[in-house]
């Protein structure tokens, strides 16, 4: 119950934040703009519009999740609203979990709004193949959730600016993991240098989630299919990764002085 009280207040506060509304407005403007732009393209290029719409959802979803998560807990510490909350019978674990759930609920609402506008626009253009698009958006939502988990964890140990920087680096590295494996084989120099480089690359490869796995936008744009249980596999993988991040967050927040 406490968990949902914290989650609801986080959600209520987040949806009132002007910055999130501005980001949502730009996302919707970009999705709408892609369709206006499609009127000037030959029919063969129309798949590019689908790609652009999905990219807009991804871009703004990523920005919203990072923007929200990096300040979610630090802002409560700065404003000291956390003092009256933690002086009530609210465990620090429930607090972290509640904040995360509230953040995910906000993220879910934002993603649904963007997806509904995108699908409605596609529908009016006569494209009724929504199944794979919903799956693509669902996978993006998994990516946003994972990013939010990373940002909430980092918000306990670093400042919001550093947090945002690390999140962007993780996102970039997570989209390059295939290349990291490839780069590993090209290590040069002394034997010890090669060993160190390979170890570093291997650690990055193991630790950083592979964000490319969440991206099926090319397949959607080209009308290809993905395995039937692909989204579920990604869902389960994300749940485990996020659960691990939340356990780490709870551990560090349990020792944090507020």
């Amino acid at each position, binding site marked *: *119950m*406490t968990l949902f*009280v914290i989650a609801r*207040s986080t959600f*209520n*506060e987040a949806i*009132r934040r002007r910055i999130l509304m501005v980001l949502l407005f730009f996302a919707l403007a970009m999705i709408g703009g892609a369709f206006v732009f499609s009127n000037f393209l030959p029919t063969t290029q129309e798949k590019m519009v689908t790609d652009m719409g999905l990219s807009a959802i991804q871009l703004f979803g990523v920005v919203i999740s990072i923007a929200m998560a990096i300040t979610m807990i630090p802002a409560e510490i700065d*404003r*000291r*609203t*956390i*003092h*009256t*909350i*933690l*002086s*009530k*019978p*609210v*465990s620090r674990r429930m607090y972290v979990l509640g904040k995360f759930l509230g953040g995910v609920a906000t993220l879910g609402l934002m993603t649904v709004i963007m997806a509904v506008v995108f699908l409605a626009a596609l529908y009016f253009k006569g494209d009724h193949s929504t199944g794979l698009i919903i799956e693509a958006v669902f996978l993006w939502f998994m990516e946003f959730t994972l990013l939010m988990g990373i940002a909430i964890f980092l918000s306990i140990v670093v400042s919001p600016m550093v947090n945002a920087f690390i999140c962007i680096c993780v996102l970039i590295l997570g989209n390059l993991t295939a290349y990291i494996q490839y780069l590993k084989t090209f290590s040069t120099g002394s034997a010890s240098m090669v060993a160190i480089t390979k170890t570093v690359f291997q650690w990055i490869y193991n630790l950083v989630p592979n964000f490319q796995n969440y991206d099926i936008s090319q397949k959607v744009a080209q009308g290809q299919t993905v395995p039937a249980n692909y989204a579920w596999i990604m869902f389960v993988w994300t749940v485990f990764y996020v659960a691990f991040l939340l356990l780490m967050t709870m551990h560090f927040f349990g*020792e944090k*002085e*507020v």
Partner: protein
Amino acid sequence: MQTANETVIRTEKLTKSYASPNMIGGVLTVLNELDLEVFQGEIFGFLGPNGAGKTTTIKLLLGLIFPTSGTAEIYGKPADDLAVKHKISFMPDQPHYYDFLSGYEVLKFYASLFKLTGKAAESKIDELLELVSMKDASKRRLREYSRGMLQRIGLAQALLNDPGLLIMDEPTNGLDPVAQRQMRDLIIELKNRGKTVFLSSHSLYDIEIIADRVALLDKGNLVKVGRTRELLSRKELELTAELPNEEAVQAIRALAPDTRQTGLTVILRTANEELIAQAIELVHQHKGRLISVVPLQQSLEELFMETVGKGGGR
């Protein structure tokens, strides 16, 4: 079942240190081996200049920060125990609540943290809004509230769980004189209902008139603790008498050279009760009029300045 004189708060050698920002490897001790006991049903005034360690102590009691060494217990359990938090409440010095909510919604939010919902929550909130005179403004957003209104909502949220122990940090901060008086009356009312109030305040006047016991903290050290009246008692007596002639005045002056004189009225201050008895005898012998013999009291402000120095802290 809580009984009178039951220890509600007990700290033993409670210490909080931080790494000093000015010295590599240095340590800054903001609270040094604090031993404190607060008993059931009393108003305990917690005083000290800025940086004395008052807020640090409160944060330690609330489990917001952790001691470097020593222990803090509330109702016999570690201060950060979740079970303890059902019985205590905190009213912060600055009103830090969700300002996008109305006064009513804020109280509803905090009530739900105590699993107080539905009709029970509504009636409790209504009762408290009435108590803090905020019923009319309860539908307005907190960001539209004045400082005094926020303090009132702060008090209401602190009373939602009917706490046994109320920890108040500067409750009269930012209140006008009328509201300050109302806040003091409310605190006394809480004591009359059997609540224990741990009151940190800069307002020496407030503490002097309502606190049963007082602790004075300076630079992280407990410098005085005890019953307010006892701490403020100078253990001196003051005799005032009107004498019939200069000869009688000189007789008193011979007894106590420090005696002050205004015309034929003398004022004698001394801790020596024997001397006072002799002075009374002399007044009677000279057929003078004994106006008063009263025990002298220090104001809390005088005690504060005497104890923590005129610098007003760090």
